[in-house]
């Protein structure tokens, strides 16, 4: 094995040779430079491979003596991994900086090499003073590179950096020399366990070393200089700082851990996690990309440090550090490197505006990088976070968990905002701006794509090593990748393929499902297939839609069959991620998708905490009210329960029409599924007992009332349907909260029928808005004559939804009221009456405004909706009719499922009559009577018609006048103005305001905090000094 000393030799030799070689021409020196970097990378890879194959360590003593006489180096698995990381980032960064490096004087390349060498030294050395030397080497090289291109900003940033670095090195030196004084050695291994470390002096000396290393890790709030450096640096250099330097520094910190007492470790842990939370909080206000990445980097490094310290404090062995800190670090390293390189390629200036939009591949890479950084599956940070939170909850570090959650949420917000700016172009304020052209970046895209690939591969590896070998688990990702590869195909073909893919998934997944799972599989996979088919309704390729759609549907499918909590949770997050991107693809999806994302991530974090708290495994977990409460809260966010619903209307409405339909009809049901499953796992007890369930019931009912009320005031058809869905899911929630046979039968029935008729309605509206080119209802009108099938579908949908007999909806109402009254929830029942009355209003208003009333001139020639939309509607229509005539078709399976959990009490069938303790309902007889009466009446009408004359739209009695424009004759705008006067005060968006206030608070706090970063190097230096002092105080207090 080549001794690592060769690295230093090679770097130093090349460093001296480069100016000579440069005399022969830049080509020669550049070749030398690249050859060295490549060789270094190759060597690092070789080390890594050999240590993976044969674990062990290689101790290297310079000069042939043993320590303490000489400087010792160590090369083991950990070191070689860190070296490989440094080498990889260095290669990518150098590639990104190739132009600058080739054009600048040769000293640029030299300095670059010195920086890399310094970082390698940091990784390898076991000598504290040597560590200092490498610290300074890498530091000086870093300062020099930062100020290399003579920009004033860069130079001042470098100067600030130096000031902070100077303070840190002074502290380090003082600490080291006293350690030497106390232990008599500089060798780390000999120092560990030395008696000299005991006592106050030892603790103080260690603290100085630690403080210096911490300062170098850029802790909040003493990191203004670092943020400036990130912002001013060339993006490649930024990647190097954020990736390689942070890795080396973290490794250095990790090295000294054995010296640290628990109090020291606690300081590291809290300093790290506070940095994570607050750096990301401040990042919220940031629009300049690199500065934002700077905040993110500082936060991420803090997070890794915190995880390391946490592991050192609470977990035996180094596996935890490997899995968690290593996972987080490698995740951060690759993701941030990729992002810095992306910003180099696309950022036009420091103000956050973009030169252009990336193509599909680079956009996908950007999505992967951001998602990875935020800790979404299947990337390494996701798995690391899962473990970290598990242990943190087990050790009752709840504040730690809360900070992890908060920091992740903030980071997700601004990183995804940046992603939106990148892939959609323009600034947030101008969503309607002209489409931004695609920018072909060529070779500059290689780095980000490689980073994305690497991170994805590592993520996949993490999953695989955790025992996820089930093909169904991989199906969502595989499906997504497959359709990404097929993205060039025409949209209609992809729609068919997607339908087939989802059907195939169903075919393989169904046999292993329980009845309960099958019921939901019908809604989710069946709905997924239907809507995949409907996805063919648009012309063109629909670039990017199908990969995300298939991934989302299949991850929902996997969520149904997942056997471990982790598997379920990963599917859940994947689904949220897919949903986010699908909403984002909508024309005006920006802000809607961001709000959706925030609630998804927040909810998912709560859910993760709950799952962990409850034991982490589906099946065999102990009943836990707290776990149920957390998981339930997360699920309520997904369900759009009242109070947590603010994301819902926008997300439902702004996604592509077919996905809106799937979102509302199918996707929302998975929360019902999960809630039912969670009840089975964690027991039914909530903190607060029965009263808490009553509150949940009321949350559902309030959602039903206020959702419906909000729906009637919408002018946008999709918003109306979205609020309607919120209301309908409110009923489901209330029914669920009853937790008895009647309640759950009701909940499942409502969920199933909502799937049927809401799908019809969404698709029908999709057709109408496709043909008319608008979603605003009062701009449509009179489409019945042009789109009769869509009309019938919508009509059946509204009759079913409103609960008017004889269609399926009435069954839902009947079950709901019977179960509510039987349960003794009388006022809930009364409020449901109000809600279902209000539902009439928006339903009528929608069908009137869209399909009836006055047709507009420009819609005189519209055609029926495309076959792709009509066929799914017809299928759903048939299902609705079938279930209406024979309610047992759907109620029998539901009652069987519920019966497995709750003993039959309340509902039972006698023949075709459903009997409860309060009454009875015979669906078949009802529909027969209604149909007979209807037919007889119809015959009477036809027989009595005298010379019927079909007239045109303006042949109306208009107070002896004539109408002049259809637009002014179609009464559709602000349809329920009196209702607004009477009850509009109930829906003035208080939840929105409350959440906006929360968000406003966060950004205000961020705004206040970031005043710390004055831009004055001296202030930053003061921060550093004070920070060290305060940390010391903390240590003393503890």
């Amino acid at each position, binding site marked *: 094995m080549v001794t690592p000393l060769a690295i230093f030799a090679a770097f130093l030799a090349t460093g001296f040779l480069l100016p000579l070689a440069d005399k022969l021409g830049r080509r020669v020196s550049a070749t030398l430079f690249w050859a060295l970097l490549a060789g270094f990378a190759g060597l690092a890879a070789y080390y890594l491979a050999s240590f993976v194959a044969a674990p062990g360590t290689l101790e290297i003593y310079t000069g042939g003596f043993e320590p303490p006489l000489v400087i010792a180096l160590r090369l083991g698995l950990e070191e070689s991994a860190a070296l490989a990381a440094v080498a990889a980032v260095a290669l990518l960064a150098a590639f990104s900086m190739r132009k600058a490096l080739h054009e600048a004087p040769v000293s640029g390349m030299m300095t670059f090499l010195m920086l890399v060498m310094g970082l390698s030294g940091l990784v390898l050395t076991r000598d504290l003073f040597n560590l200092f030397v490498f610290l300074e080497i890498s530091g000086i090289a870093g300062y020099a590179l930062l100020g290399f291109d003579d920009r004033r900003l860069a130079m001042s940033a470098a100067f600030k950096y130096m000031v902070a670095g100077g303070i840190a090195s002074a502290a380090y030196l003082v600490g080291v020399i006293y350690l030497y004084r106390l232990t008599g050695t500089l060798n780390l291994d000999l120092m560990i366990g030395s008696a000299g470390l005991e006592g106050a002096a030892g603790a103080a000396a260690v603290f100085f070393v630690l403080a210096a290393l911490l300062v170098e890790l850029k802790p909040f709030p003493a990191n203004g200089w670092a943020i400036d450096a990130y912002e001013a640096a060339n993006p490649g250099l930024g990647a190097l700082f954020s990736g390689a330097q942070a890795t080396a520094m973290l490794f250095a910190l990790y090295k000294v851990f054995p010296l640290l007492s628990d109090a020291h470790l606690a300081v590291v842990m809290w300093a790290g996690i506070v940095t994570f939370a607050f750096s990301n909080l401040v990042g919220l206000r940031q629009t300049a990309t690199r500065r934002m990445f700077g905040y993110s980097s500082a936060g991420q490094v803090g997070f890794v440090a915190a995880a390391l310290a946490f592991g050192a404090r609470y977990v035996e062995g180094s596996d935890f550090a490997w899995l968690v800190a290593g996972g987080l670090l490698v995740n951060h390293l690759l993701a941030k490197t990729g992002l810095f390189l992306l910003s180099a390629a696309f950022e036009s200036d420091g103000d956050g505006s973009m030169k252009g939009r990336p193509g599909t591949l680079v956009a996908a890479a950007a999505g992967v990088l951001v998602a990875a950084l935020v800790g979404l599956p299947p990337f390494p940070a996701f798995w690391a976070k899962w473990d970290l939170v598990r242990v943190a909850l087990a050790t009752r570090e709840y504040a730690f968990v809360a900070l992890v959650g908060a920091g992740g949420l903030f980071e997700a917000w601004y990183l995804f905002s940046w992603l939106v700016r990148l892939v959609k172009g323009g600034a947030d304020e101008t969503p309607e701006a002209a489409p931004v052209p695609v920018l072909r970046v060529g070779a500059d895209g290689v780095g980000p794509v490689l980073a994305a690939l690497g991170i994805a591969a590592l993520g996949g590896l993490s999953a695989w090593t955790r025992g996820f070998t089930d093909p169904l688990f991989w199906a969502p990702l595989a499906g997504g990748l497959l359709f990404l590869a097929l993205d060039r195909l025409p949209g209609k073909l992809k729609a068919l393929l997607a339908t087939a893919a989802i059907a195939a998934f169903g075919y393989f997944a169904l046999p292993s499902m329980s009845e309960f799972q099958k019921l939901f599989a019908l809604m989710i996979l069946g709905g997924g297939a239907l809507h995949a088919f409907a996805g063919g309704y648009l012309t063109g390729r629909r670039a990017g839609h199908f990969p995300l759609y298939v991934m989302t549907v299949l991850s929902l499918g996997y969520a149904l069959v997942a056997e471990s909590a982790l598997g379920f949770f990963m599917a859940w997050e994947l689904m949220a991620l897919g949903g986010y991107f699908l909403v984002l693809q909508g024309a005006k999806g920006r802000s809607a998708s961001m709000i959706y994302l925030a609630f998804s991530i927040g909810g998912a974090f709560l859910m993760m905490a709950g799952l962990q708290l409850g034991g982490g495994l589906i099946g065999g977990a102990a009943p836990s009210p707290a776990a149920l409460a957390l998981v339930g809260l997360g699920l309520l966010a997904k369900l759009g329960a009242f109070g947590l619903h603010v994301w819902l209307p926008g997300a439902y409405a702004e996604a592509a029409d077919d996905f809106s339909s799937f979102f509302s009809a199918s996707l929302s049901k998975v929360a019902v599924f999960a809630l039912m499953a969670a009840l089975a796992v964690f027991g039914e007890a909530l903190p607060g007992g029965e009263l808490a369930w009553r509150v949940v019931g009321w949350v559902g009912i309030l959602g039903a009332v206020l959702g419906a009320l909000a729906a009637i005031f919408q002018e946008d058809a999709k918003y109306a349907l979205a609020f309607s869905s919120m209301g309908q899911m409110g009923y489901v929630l209330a029914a669920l909260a009853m937790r008895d046979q009647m309640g759950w039968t009701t909940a499942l029935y409502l969920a199933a029928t909502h799937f049927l008729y809401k799908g019809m309605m969404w698709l029908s509206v999709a057709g109408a808005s496709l043909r008319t080119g608008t979603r605003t209802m009062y701009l449509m009108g009179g489409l019945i004559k042009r789109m009769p099938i869509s009309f019938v579908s919508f009509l059946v949908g509204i009759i079913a939804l409103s609960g008017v007999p004889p269609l399926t909806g009435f069954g839902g109402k009947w079950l709901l009221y019977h179960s509510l009254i039987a349960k003794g929830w009388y006022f809930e029942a009364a409020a449901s009456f109000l809600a279902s009355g209000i539902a009439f209003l928006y339903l009528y208003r929608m069908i009137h405004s869209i399909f009836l009333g006055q047709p507009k001139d420009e819609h005189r020639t519209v055609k029926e909706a495309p076959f792709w939309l009509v066929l799914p509607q017809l299928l759903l229509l048939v299902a609705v009719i079938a279930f209406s005539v024979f309610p047992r078709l759907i109620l029998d399976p539901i009652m069987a499922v519920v019966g497995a959990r709750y003993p039959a009490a309340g509902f039972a069938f006698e023949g075709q009559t459903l009997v409860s303790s309060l009454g009875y309902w015979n669906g078949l007889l009802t529909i027969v009577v209604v149909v007979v009466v209807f037919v007889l009446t119809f015959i009477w009408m036809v027989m009595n018609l005298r*010379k019927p004359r079909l007239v045109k739209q*303006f042949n109306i009695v208009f107070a002896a006048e004539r109408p002049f424009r*259809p637009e002014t004759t179609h009464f559709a705008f602000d349809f329920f103005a009196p209702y607004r006067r009477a009850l509009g005060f109930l829906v003035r968006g208080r939840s929105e305001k409350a959440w906006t206030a929360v968000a406003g608070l966060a950004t205000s706090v961020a705004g206040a905090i970031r005043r710390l970063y004055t831009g004055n190097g001296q202030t930053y230096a003061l921060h550093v000094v004070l920070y060290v002092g305060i940390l010391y105080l903390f240590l003393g207090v503890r």
Partner: protein
Amino acid sequence: MSDIKFTRALADPDHALKPAGRPGPLGKPLVLANDGLPEEEKAWFCDAYPTASGPYKGILENFLNWARSKSLWILGFGTGCGAIELRPLMTSRFDMYRFGIQPRPTPRQSSVFVIGGYASVKTLKRIVRSYEQMMGPKFVVALGSCTINGGMYWDSYNTINAIEHYIPVDVYIAGCMPRPEALLAGFKELQRKIRRGECEGAVKYAENFEWYKANQKKVIHDWNMPDYNY
């Protein structure tokens, strides 16, 4: 602004009243020209040619005529000053409800159109429109001298002189103004005529559609509606 052109009306010298009840010309077109409408507005209005329904005969028709006479729904459209005399009919003193007469706010559901006195050209346009929107059989009661021969407005430049040139009239009630008692008497007369099967104004209107339309168009110059308002 001062380029006003004082032009004489495009007068038609033929003012003679054509004999009523004359069968219309054979081979009527199926579609109305609707010349008064711009091309882009024609699609908004039905352009079918009005056809006569009736008169019918037989026991059933007699029964229906009786029912029609007992259920007179007045279009609530006060076309002139005579409308003020209709109001007392609803009061307890005159109580037209006794006779099955009641006001109805929409022409679709009304069977009696009461022309309440003088009809200016501007009002005539609305009268024609509302009359055509009523469902047959429909009846017209014209009250006041103005509807008969112009009354005190006989020489006015914007009040028509004889309403039957524009729509068929079943009963005239003379007076300026006729008192509510006279109105009641008129309604009783209308009921008798209906029962006798003599009130076929709708049929007359359809059969002599061109004549009525020509008369109407002669006075209504800004004809911005279809030729027949369904």
